[in-house]
């Protein structure tokens, strides 16, 4: 058993003629806070979906929590939590009903999940809203509920795919506080995708993706030093010849 939470070897995915992800080699250590940085269309979400077994790779292989994503999808899915780019809550159900539904999908008995759900709702400041329909929640609260649901089954690895998209600055801040709290409390491995450079700054290591290729990998400090620049934004510029914000056009 290695200490690697995620290992990708030559992992790639094509959609028809489009090469969404070329050949990715990546290792994420247990307990690491790992950032996948790149503009929209760089292959970040494709990478996450490949690692979460929602997509089948066109080439290469990957192991997540020690399980092969092609051979042993169920075991992979049992070890991970995934917070999608846009909310996947059922708007017609209440917050608590959504979490109970997820608990049953993850085969947790109601007896065990009830206290766990209440504890999570308290932790995410949703306890007063537990019996309100998700429809009535603000964007920040929905995100908090998404994350609470993502860690309900105590996964080893949490994928956060563009978690702050559409949130106001205050909601973003409180989201990062929660992630920090979770990592401190449980040693959770977190793989974050983002196209906001400043969000990748607190990561232990960052991989920069552009057009489906890995263009840089390292700690934020090392990347900045290697490129001889002061910010990750400039690192991105140095590696790709364009700014993140520019690439973000489409």
């Amino acid at each position, binding site marked *: 058993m290695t200490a690697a939470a995620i290992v990708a070897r030559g992992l790639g995915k094509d959609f028809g003629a489009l090469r969404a992800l070329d050949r990715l080699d990546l290792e994420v250590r247990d307990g690491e806070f790992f950032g996948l940085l790149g503009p929209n269309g760089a292959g970040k979400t494709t990478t996450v979906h490949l690692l979460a077994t929602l997509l089948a790779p066109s080439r290469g292989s990957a192991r997540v929590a020690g399980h092969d994503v092609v051979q042993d999808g169920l075991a992979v899915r049992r070890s991970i939590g995934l917070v999608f780019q846009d909310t996947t809550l059922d708007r*017609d159900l209440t917050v608590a009903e959504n979490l109970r539904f997820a608990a049953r999908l993850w085969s947790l008995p109601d007896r065990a999940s009830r206290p766990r759900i209440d504890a999570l709702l308290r932790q995410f400041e949703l306890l007063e809203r537990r019996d309100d329909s998700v429809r009535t929640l603000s964007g920040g609260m929905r995100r908090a509920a998404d994350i609470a649901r993502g860690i309900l089954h105590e996964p080893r690895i949490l994928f956060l795919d563009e978690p702050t998209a559409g949130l106001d600055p205050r909601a973003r801040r409180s989201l990062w506080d929660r992630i920090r709290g979770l990592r401190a409390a449980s040693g959770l491995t977190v793989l974050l995708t983002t196209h906001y450079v400043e969000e990748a700054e607190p990561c232990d290591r960052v991989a920069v993706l552009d057009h489906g290729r890995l263009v840089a990998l390292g700690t934020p400090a090392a990347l900045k030093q290697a490129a001889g620049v002061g910010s990750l934004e400039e690192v991105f510029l140095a590696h790709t010849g364009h700014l993140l914000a520019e690439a973000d056009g489409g």
Partner: protein
Amino acid sequence: MRAVYGIVAREFLRFLRQRGRVLASIGRPFVWLVFAGAGFAGVFAGRNEIDYRVYMAPGLLGMVVMFGSLLAALSTVTDREAGVLRMMLVAPVRRRTVALGKALGATLLGTAQSIVVAALLLPLVHLRPTLAGALLGLVAVVLSGLALGALGVVIAASIRSIENFAGVMNFVVFPMLFLSGALYPVRHLGPVLRAAAYANPLAYGVDLLKHALLGAWAGAGYGGELPVPLDCAALALFAIVGLTIAAWLLGREGGVTRTAFRERR
């Protein structure tokens, strides 16, 4: 299995939340009874063998199962658009478990709705089934619900969006209803339509319901037209084939990620 239970429980919660859906499903057969019943009763009246409203009762129950199960299963389309399907597919359950959960939820919803409607409708048309008839009716409703629920998941997994819904209503739901024997006996149809009727799961369900409820009129030619075991076998076959196809369709990566891919661009 817990995951199936979770999916079924969610279907029920959603149904009860949608008050309009509850009222529509219970009210729909009575609208048909009053309006279609009034019109067709005159046409049928010639031979005084059976009150048309009594003749309609099994068909109306079949219609309740069809709308209940098919529409519930079609909600898989909404699940995909709202992202809930993705959430189910990232859970540690097999694709076929998700398909089975959706189809079973649809079956139970269709069954519950037809039991409620039967309790109101049968006294209204003075139909009092025997115990054996009632039990056979329940079997008919459950089997039809499974077959139609599976069909609904298949349709939902193969259409792209809810915009195709009107097409489904026009080219699936209404033909199925009219070719089911719910409103007139299948034996009066021409050979082509009759062949189409036998490719229609609802036709076997309605036939079984006629065996269950119209036994007293079998001599006059208004009971079931096919043998009971054949009806049951056909429905079971539709259910098994439908579930197999549904599981395969949901397993296809396009089922989940087509939207994800579109967003990515």
